[in-house]
């Protein structure tokens, strides 16, 4: 049996140094981090985007990713959707005693791979170990900073009537994957989490047109909640067309089985962009060229009718309200 992390690993003493040296730093080593000073010191120019998020997903390993990949991608994506180029991350771990060192290393390997893919570096961090029951295996908090290029101004309050709504790919993959892994509800579904860093696709979109009005990554609460937020922030209506919204067959079937609406199910590697009609096809083409945007589609438009609300034209040609998620579908999905 491999080594297990115990409370003493969080004591701040020699065992802590050992854990950090063996299980953490080798995976994310870089000049700024390796100094191991109390703060990373960085030269910076330009408009800064700064964000933070905590990750408590259960289980910590799931098809298509793990909590490490999620913690990097989630923060990278939060920076990306305001138009920023993500640069530096912090990484704080809260470990429940009893986690195996091998599992920690597996998570850290994912952190390394996701950071390399996104082109970001982890420059500072923290590690704590808590009593059994004080956390659930592993919680991670990442913060991130990025630089916003000149001329970019993407915000949820910038949607304008006439704009097109573009979605980067299929919805619900992450939420259904996690649901299928939960104790007491395990089911086989041929779908994996979409967890991915979207910054390179966003850079290509902004190159196609810096006039993108708004971007969001529809995580918890799903696409429906994200679009309702934008409709309210911008005081506009949004109308979707049901048949244009990409949903995998397996996700749709699982949603039928569980009584969910795919529009309410979480994603971790998708974004929705609100763009002026004149540049929509250019932005869409740029998205489709990227691996993470190959299924991108225009799914609706921004209208003056019913400000603050989202509606959908169904396959039968009828109209229905698309409301925010109320209550909780899936506990601890990210």
């Amino acid at each position, binding site marked *: 049996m491999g080594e297990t992390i115990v409370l003493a690993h969080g004591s701040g003493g020699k065992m802590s140094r050992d854990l950090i040296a063996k299980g953490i730093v080798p995976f994310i080593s870089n000049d700024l981090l390796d100094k191991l000073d109390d703060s990373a010191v960085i030269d910076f120019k330009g408009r800064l985007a700064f964000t933070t998020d905590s990750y408590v997903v259960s289980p910590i390993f799931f098809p298509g990713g793990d909590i490490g990949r999620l913690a990097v991608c989630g923060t990278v994506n939060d920076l990306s959707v305001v138009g920023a180029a993500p640069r530096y991350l912090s990484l704080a771990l809260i470990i429940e005693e009893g986690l195996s060192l091998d599992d920690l290393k597996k998570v850290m390997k994912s952190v390394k791979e996701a950071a390399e893919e996104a082109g970001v570096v982890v420059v500072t961090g923290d590690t704590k170990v808590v009593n059994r029951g004080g956390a659930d295996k592993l919680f991670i908090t990442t913060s991130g900073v990025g630089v916003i290029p000149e001329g970019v101004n993407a915000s949820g309050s910038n949607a304008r009537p006439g704009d097109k709504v573009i979605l980067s790919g299929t919805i619900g993959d992450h939420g259904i994957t996690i649901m299928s892994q939960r104790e*007491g*509800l395990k089911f086989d579904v041929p779908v994996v989490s979409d967890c991915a860093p979207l910054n390179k696709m966003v850079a290509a979109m902004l190159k196609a047109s810096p006039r993108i009005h708004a971007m969001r990554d529809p995580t918890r609460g799903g696409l429906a909640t994200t679009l309702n937020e934008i409709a309210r922030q911008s005081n506009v209506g949004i109308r979707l067309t049901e048949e244009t919204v990409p949903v995998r067959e397996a996700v749709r079937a699982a949603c039928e089985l569980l009584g969910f609406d795919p529009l309410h199910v979480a994603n971790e590697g998708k974004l929705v962009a609100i763009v002026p009609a004149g540049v929509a096809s250019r932005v869409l083409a740029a998205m489709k060229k990227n691996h993470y945007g190959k299924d991108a589609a225009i799914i609706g438009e921004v209208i003056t009718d019913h400000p603050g609300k989202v509606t959908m034209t169904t396959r*039968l040609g009828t109209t*229905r309200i698309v409301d925010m998620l109320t209550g909780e579908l899936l506990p601890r999905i990210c």
Partner: protein
Amino acid sequence: MKFVDEYRNTELGRKLVQRINRISAKPASLMEFCGGHTVAIMRNGIRQLFPPHIKLLSGPGCPVCVTAHHDLDQAIALGQVPGTIVTTFGDMMKVPGSELSLQQARAGGADIRIVYSPRDSLEIARNGPGKQVVFLAVGFETTTPGVAATILEAEKTKIENFCVKSLLKVCPPVIKALLDLGEVKLDGLICPGHVSAVIGSRPWEFIPEKYRIACTVTGFEPLDILLSVDRLVEQIEKGEPKVETTYTRGVKPEGNLQAQKLMEQVFEPCLAQWRGLGTVPASGLKPRTRYSCFDADVRIPVTVKPAAEPKGCLCGEILRGVKTPSDCKLFGGRCTPENPVGPCMVSSEGACAAYYQYGR
């Protein structure tokens, strides 16, 4: 074969709608008994497709919604008995009781846990031998065989700290009670699909025979519902009511005999309280005497004060099809899914929740 696309075909849907509009001349008040149908109708905007003389009314087919206040108060009281763990499906947690909901009782220290299946409760009982685990069984004929199988498993594996608070109900007697009340004049009834998968389509035959009301047994996809309305309208126009099953992929005339056998082995009919409808003879199920050691009413009897319905809430009228959610003054204002006053706004299959979610 794909799972659902065949039943969402736009072209077929349009053709059915055209046909319904062409053949329908007589007024047709149709009730969908089941909450699952209400959700499908609202989610697909199906009411918008028919002329005004075809009306779709929602019925009492949501097990959470029809749970009487008094029964819910008893369940909450069970959760407050020291050493007891109450397990329940998630939908029940937010339903307001006279004073508390299960969710609020849990916040106050009661051990109430959400399970996805009755068997999970057995697992909790196995792992907590010092505690009494009470599964709050809410559901219709669809849920009952699973509860029956769990009781049999508890007996076989000698798990003594497990019992069931049965709020289980059966559908045919309540439909009869609703029709006998005569408050709403119905021309057609969309019978519950999943319930029929268990009991079959034969138990509905009394409806056309005795009440001259057209009936269909149908599934939950948009085309299922359109086809069902098409069949009902044709029966109404011809004046030839009968039970037609359009859900042949799920329902046989005789139903699922194995599931029926399980139900009959473990449960017997009893008087049951329905919110909005009062007590209906033989519409509930309780464990037979042979299984009374798994009956929470026998094992841990609790008494609660008589319950009063919340003021202004029209859940009762809505469950009987007399009013629609939009008739209720509380709808969308004081009563929302976040802050529900009545159960129809809580359950994912409740009429008010479906109207709120898809139809405001």
